[in-house]
């Protein structure tokens, strides 16, 4: 929960900014300086799709202290409409009612809180449409 890290990651966490390779046209998230698929340096910022499909999900009971405030919560592997896959929390749902394959959309939530006095980390999660 270090200030420089939260600052550096904000475009990725708030807006889902990854990269698109101008050469091989592949999209990737999170961003890298060169394309992880073809190695080209010719990459530009790319905003990941806001909607996707739930591929796998589980309910997390135990985790690290900065995330534990929200347990039990659902985490899922989400395949976005642009083919990018991300791991993220699924909110506004009850675990027992969730089904693989449902449609999801991005939402903006608190990811972690560093105690009562530290910084708050915000970022994207998903909710059923």
């Amino acid at each position, binding site marked *: 929960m270090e200030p420089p890290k939260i600052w550096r990651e*904000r*475009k990725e966490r*708030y*807006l889902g900014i990854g990269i698109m390779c101008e050469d091989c046209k592949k999209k990737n998230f999170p961003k890298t300086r060169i394309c992880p698929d073809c190695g080209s340096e010719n990459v530009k910022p790319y905003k990941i799709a806001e909607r996707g499909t739930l591929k796998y999900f589980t309910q997390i009971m135990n985790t690290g202290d900065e995330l534990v*405030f*929200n347990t039990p*919560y659902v985490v899922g592997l989400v395949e976005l409409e642009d083919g990018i896959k991300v791991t993220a*929390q699924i*909110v*506004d749902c*009850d675990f027992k009612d969730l089904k693989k394959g449902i449609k999801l959309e991005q*939402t*903006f*939530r*608190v*990811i972690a809180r560093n105690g009562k006095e530290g910084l*708050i980390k*915000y970022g994207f*999660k998903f909710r059923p449409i």
Partner: protein
Amino acid sequence: MSEKIGIVAYGVYIPRNRITVDEIASVWGEDANEIKMQLQVFEKSVPFPDEDVATMAVEAARNAIKQWRGESEKIGAIYVGSESHPYAVKPTATIVAAAIGAEGQTTAADLEFACKAGTAGMQMCFGLMQSNMIKVGLAIGSDSSQAKPKDPLEYTAGAGSAAFLIGKQNVIAELEGMYSYTSDTPDFWRREGATFPSHGQRFTGMPAYFDHIIKATKGLLEKINRKPEDYDYVTFHQPNTKFPLRVAKMLGFSKEQVEKSLACKYIGNTYSASSMIGFAKILDDAQPGDRVLVTSYGSGAGSDSFSFRITENIEKIRDRSKTVQYYIENKRNISYGLYSRYKGILKV
């Protein structure tokens, strides 16, 4: 006025959890029916542990931008009004700016004036617009209010957010005038470091809520030479449902004029967002040519009153984002146990 200025888009957000008056009353052995009759509030909204004023403000702002279909980088001012900002020092408005892609050449600030900090932001945006200092401004009222357990406020202290984009192009609700009334009235307060607000019980009524709303509204009507019957809809701050109904009557508005705005029945008092959500609920159904009067109230105390005329542009932006009714209906009820965990009353 040479050029029309006004609302170009709006968006709201209300968290999905609700707790009923019955559930709260059962914990304290109170008569739920009596409370419901008195307040005319049935349930209130409760945020999840991973929601706060900033996340709700972002959701509302994104809904407004979706409706607007403009470019976020053009937003020249961002104001977030709240009495429950997540940080005491560090702005919510910068989080909103980053999360809507509007970092850069914009001014931003957090505002606090109890329940009217959101409309204070609207006024500031109108001012910047009128003086041609910005092209588009974003004013947000967002609150996740705290109430001491067993306090009468516990039945109504809800959570929600409303965002208004203010500009000159494609105005959906043209500003016809605004008027404010302010006095130093200690009806409701929270000291630095205190978890829960305190209030002056019956003192929050006549000398506070009613006096300021009446003076601001009458002031506006006089200033722009209008009468209550010139309006199709009116919305006031909604600490409960009884107060706006009573103040409407005192000002000479009918029940029908105010009724459409009353979201409080289902979501409680959303503080800085309250009169703005009421306004958004009206806009969701308003027709071109309709006149709407909005008067907020913030303890401490003050009221901002606005007169709007709905333009034909309202037809174009309909169904582009979620309505107040959508959020009212998108809910799940929770127990007092879960409520106390979500609100941090239950310490872990």
